[in-house]
């Protein structure tokens, strides 16, 4: 048994321990904190699995931004916990659920223990065209060139999720902004941090985006870091949440997918088809798309965390949205 394996075994036990805590903890808040630590540990696991791109994503999104959403929700839902506890399913139900879960886990474990022998891999195919794309990071190449259509659709999913969140707002708030909970007692220290950290965060975010062409990093990770800085500044009330009816905001939201789509359609004219890039400028195109995507991702993630609007739009007629009159239909 090598030192490396001992480390990995300890890490795996720790991950499972924190996961059990997340399920078993009595208070929801304790479970959420358990989940945040789970995300941090997963980032370590991804480094051990030689997937640093994933580790970056997990550190930024899986743990950081998700944690912010869940912790806020747990604190607000605390009054409901006692009532829900009475709805716990009976022993028979829990036993059945346990049996099902064990069965599923065992089946998956069997898959892990008896995998197909020449391990299936697309790595050689991915490596084949890396030089032509002039992109050193194979994961970026997969995300933005080989399987670019997946990434495009994923951006659409993000937008749809944001529309879903917005649509939860009562009609009169449509086009308004989410009210940031400005708490004077959250202390000068946090406000200080929210002033000092974003400049550093923006540099790191752009660096992660830029380095993504040759090393782990890219639009998702960079965008998530930028979003995090924006969220921090919204949390402390330094910047208000934007009104969702504003046209510039909407344009920013669709900028990434739109740029992607335009380049994709141009592929019909100048290359072999949808989302295929002319070899000479493939790298420049990829970086341009990534830059637009990063901005869109940052804005979408930030707005997802801010939540549905909870304030009436300031200039109601400036919004000129027919949806603003939805109440008349009731």
């Amino acid at each position, binding site marked *: 048994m090598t030192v490396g394996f001992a480390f990995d075994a300890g890490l795996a036990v720790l991950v499972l321990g924190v*996961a059990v805590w997340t399920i078993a903890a009595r208070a929801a808040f304790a479970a959420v904190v358990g989940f945040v630590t789970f995300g941090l540990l997963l980032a370590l696991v991804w480094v051990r699995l030689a997937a640093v791109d994933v580790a970056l994503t997990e550190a930024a999104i899986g743990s950081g931004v998700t944690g912010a959403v869940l912790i806020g929700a747990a604190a607000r839902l605390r009054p409901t916990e006692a009532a829900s506890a009475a709805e716990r399913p009976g022993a028979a139900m829990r036993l059945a659920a346990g049996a099902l879960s064990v069965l599923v886990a065992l089946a998956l474990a069997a898959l892990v223990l008896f995998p197909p022998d020449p391990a299936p891999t*697309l790595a050689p195919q991915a490596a084949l065209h890396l030089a032509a794309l002039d992109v050193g990071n194979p994961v970026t190449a997969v995300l933005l060139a080989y399987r670019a259509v997946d990434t495009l659709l994923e951006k659409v999913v*993000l937008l749809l999720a944001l529309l879903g969140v917005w649509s939860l707002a009562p009609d009169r708030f449509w086009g308004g902004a989410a009210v940031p909970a400005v708490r004077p007692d959250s202390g000068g220290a946090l406000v200080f941090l929210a002033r000092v950290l974003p400049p550093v965060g923006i540099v790191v975010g752009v660096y992660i985006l830029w380095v993504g062409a040759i090393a782990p990093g890219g639009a998702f990770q960079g965008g998530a870091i930028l979003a995090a800085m924006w969220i921090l500044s919204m949390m402390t009330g330094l910047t208000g949440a934007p009104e969702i009816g504003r046209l510039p905001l909407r344009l920013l939201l669709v900028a990434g997918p739109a740029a992607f789509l335009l380049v994709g359609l141009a592929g019909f004219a100048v290359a072999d088809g949808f989302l295929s890039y002319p070899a000479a400028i493939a790298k420049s195109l990829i970086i341009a798309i990534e830059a637009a995507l990063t901005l869109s991702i940052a804005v979408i993630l930030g707005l997802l965390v801010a939540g549905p609007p909870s304030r009436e739009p300031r200039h109601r007629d400036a919004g000129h949205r027919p949806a603003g009159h939805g109440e008349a239909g009731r």
Partner: protein
Amino acid sequence: MTATTLFGLCGAALVGLGLFGVVVHPQPLRKILAFNLLGGGVFLLFGAIARRGAAAGMGADPVPQAMVITGIVVAFSATALAVALVLRLFEATGGASLNSDPPRTEPAAGPDG
């Protein structure tokens, strides 16, 4: 046993654990947490598969890695939407029960928007 197998097994166990939590916990927020654990387990399985596919000078097969990155982002957006739904439910009814006929919560479900 290799580290890859180890983390694969860890992923399988996480899927089971998450599934159990999704079924058993009555609180929607706990279900969301459990669902995210389940997702983390699935991602780890992908990670183990990617690591096994190391070839051509790469530490791991990039295709499953890219899928996991996409998955993490989508899981986050689903989580944010689910949390927003639960919070809206709480605002509208004062509770967060998924029970269709609440046995003994306040019956004041009338005057909401």
